[in-house]
């Protein structure tokens, strides 16, 4: 973990830090498996998309260390988490399953996030305190401050973690959220997965500072710049921020420098705006490779062990795809459900007056 101004990730090649970690070997393997599952699942969605079996995907690839590393510090079901659309690794760490995510990919009724209403990767799971992701970016940032306010008022020990890309730090939502959190010294961690691109807009066109960490100065909160391809560095930065939050020290902004290894989404063609050299360089710091090497160096993992874990991940994804694809779709009529807690009679006048209304409830009554 470093707090200095650094060039775009991919241009440095420091080895992943392992010393600062207090994780057991079993936990380290767990962390690696979760990264692996995230990657495997993510890759599969691209395949399915190309096969025409799902119309959209958006990726965590390149962000897995930042996601799983940070989420490993959180307490599932206790801490309140606002992920964003790339956070496959975060939600899998917290307890959502490959099935859950594939149910969303196929827009099935059993999708726990939205019952197939939202796009894939718009996560959400009430038991895991994973708040609902929406598409308008950065809206979750002031909401995270609000969730932390509730914690503070109730004197709970939970912490809020909120995730977003560096593009979102340009949004007014970011400013108002961090400002509020800093005034009230709220227990919230702002985690930026800074991949240097907002779709096609590079960091230089996004902000007048070299790092997102510098933005923290406007709120009098620590801005911690960390190599986001290093899972353990992110883990320990998150632990520190958590401890600070729980001790009443207020919020922290973590700037996790990562690289997006895929186009923005299945609708994007990134060759229009970034070079293949840049991408190749980034692949040399693939967080999965780095973490595998670290585990191998520490002799926690060998080649066969790795092969086994990969097969497990593939099997889990295979199973999830089969399960989800066979799972029922929402009924067309369910379109009208859950606008309000109680169904609202938004219909026409009383039937007494118009026994045959032309248009009883706002939709075509003739169907």
């Amino acid at each position, binding site marked *: 973990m470093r707090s200095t101004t650094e060039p775009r990730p991919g241009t440095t090649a420091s080895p992943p830090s392992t010393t600062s970690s207090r994780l057991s070997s079993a936990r380290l393997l767990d962390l690696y498996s979760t990264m692996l599952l995230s990657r495997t699942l993510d890759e599969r969605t691209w395949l399915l998309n190309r096969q025409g079996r799902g119309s959209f995907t958006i990726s965590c690839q390149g962000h897995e260390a930042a996601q799983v590393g940070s989420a490993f510090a959180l307490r599932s079901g206790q801490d309140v988490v606002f992920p964003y659309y790339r956070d496959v690794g975060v939600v899998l760490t917290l307890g959502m399953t490959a099935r859950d995510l594939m149910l969303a990919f196929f827009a099935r009724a059993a999708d726990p*996030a939205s019952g197939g209403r939202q796009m894939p990767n718009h996560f959400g799971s009430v038991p895991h305190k994973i708040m609902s992701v929406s598409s308008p970016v950065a809206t979750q940032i002031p909401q995270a401050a609000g969730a932390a306010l509730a914690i503070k008022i109730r004197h709970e020990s939970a912490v809020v973690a909120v995730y977003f890309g560096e593009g979102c730090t340009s949004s007014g939502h970011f400013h108002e959220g961090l400002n509020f959190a800093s005034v009230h010294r709220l227990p919230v961690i702002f985690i930026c997965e800074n991949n240097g691109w907002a779709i096609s807009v590079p960091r230089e066109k996004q902000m007048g500072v070299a790092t997102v960490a510098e933005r923290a100065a406007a709120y009098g909160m620590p801005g911690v710049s960390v190599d986001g391809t290093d899972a353990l560095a992110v883990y320990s930065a998150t632990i520190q921020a958590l401890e600070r939050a729980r001790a009443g020290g207020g919020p922290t902004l973590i700037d996790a420098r990562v690289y997006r290894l895929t186009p923005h989404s299945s609708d994007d063609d990134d060759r229009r705006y970034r070079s293949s050299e840049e991408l190749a360089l980034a692949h040399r710091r693939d967080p999965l490779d780095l973490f595998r090497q670290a585990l191998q160096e520490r002799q926690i993992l060998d080649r066969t062990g790795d092969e086994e874990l990969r097969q497990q991940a593939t099997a889990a994804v295979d199973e999830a795809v089969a399960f989800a694809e066979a799972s029922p779709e929402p009924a067309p009529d369910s379109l009208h459900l*859950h606008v309000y807690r109680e169904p609202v009679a938004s219909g026409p006048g009383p039937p007494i007056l118009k026994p045959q209304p032309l248009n009883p409830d706002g939709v075509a009554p003739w169907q």
Partner: protein
Amino acid sequence: MAVKTIVETIRDTLAEEMARDERVVVLGEDVAAKGGVFKATDGLLGRFGDDRVIDTPLGEDGIVGVAIGAALNGLRPVAEIQFADFIYPAMDQIISEAARMRYRTNGALGCPLVIRAPYGGGVHGALYHSQSVEAFFFHVPGLKICAPATPADAKGLLTAAIRDDDPVLFFEHKRLYRSIKAEVAAGELVVPIGQADLKRRGDDLSIITYGAMLHLALEAADQLAQDDRIAVEVLDLRSLLPLDREAIATTVHKTSRALILHEDTRTGGVGAEVAAFLAEELFDDLDAPIVRLTGPDVPAMPYNHALEQAFLPRLDDVLAAVRRLAAF
């Protein structure tokens, strides 16, 4: 029974609900020490402390965003937007987030939140302290909207709003804050959101209205009864969303003539929906065109007194409209 103004009623109701349910918190600009620019939160800080009565930084996006997050995490926030005219920075949070939360989670997660905002003109507030903004939210399924015009309705609807499991926009007409006084019964009063109220009965013509215009309608109805022997029925919508289509249908079925009256500008206002509903569902019942009497299609109400008065629908306008309609 005590005689109270609307602003006193709002304050007392907030205090009652805060005493009843410790999840209820109040936040907004100047709501704590100052007690709100209209004094609607006066005294709450002293009684409930600064954990529950929170002066926010200047930023409506943040106020509503924070309120949503707090609601998601178990509180029942009542956010104040200092003037309805300043609600626009919060539109993204209100429309994209609060209104769509339950729908996008397929019912798993609600967003119990009240956003109070003084609205309306006629108090020399000029372009930016006079606006009616209800129509923007009226087009957002997932939201509820209240616009009470009497102390009792303010109490009953605010109580219902705070206890509601969905986001409620609560618009308080600032011209009525202190100008309308009435008896308000002590003890709990809940007016269900989505129920209009017949404020006056009559057989000849229905005025469908809400907010400050209710009182203009009642004044006109009195005069028309005396001078013209026209019996006007006055329906106070009170809640705009859900819209009480049943009550609207019932009154127009009875009178066959409808005048829709609101202070907000005309094109795309709430009155358009009421008229469209009637034109579709009560076509056979109508004996006359459906007339809307509204503020004009200009950006907002000017400061200059003569211009401000020229904006507002007046008693004479209502009288003339009713007479023409009754004679149709």
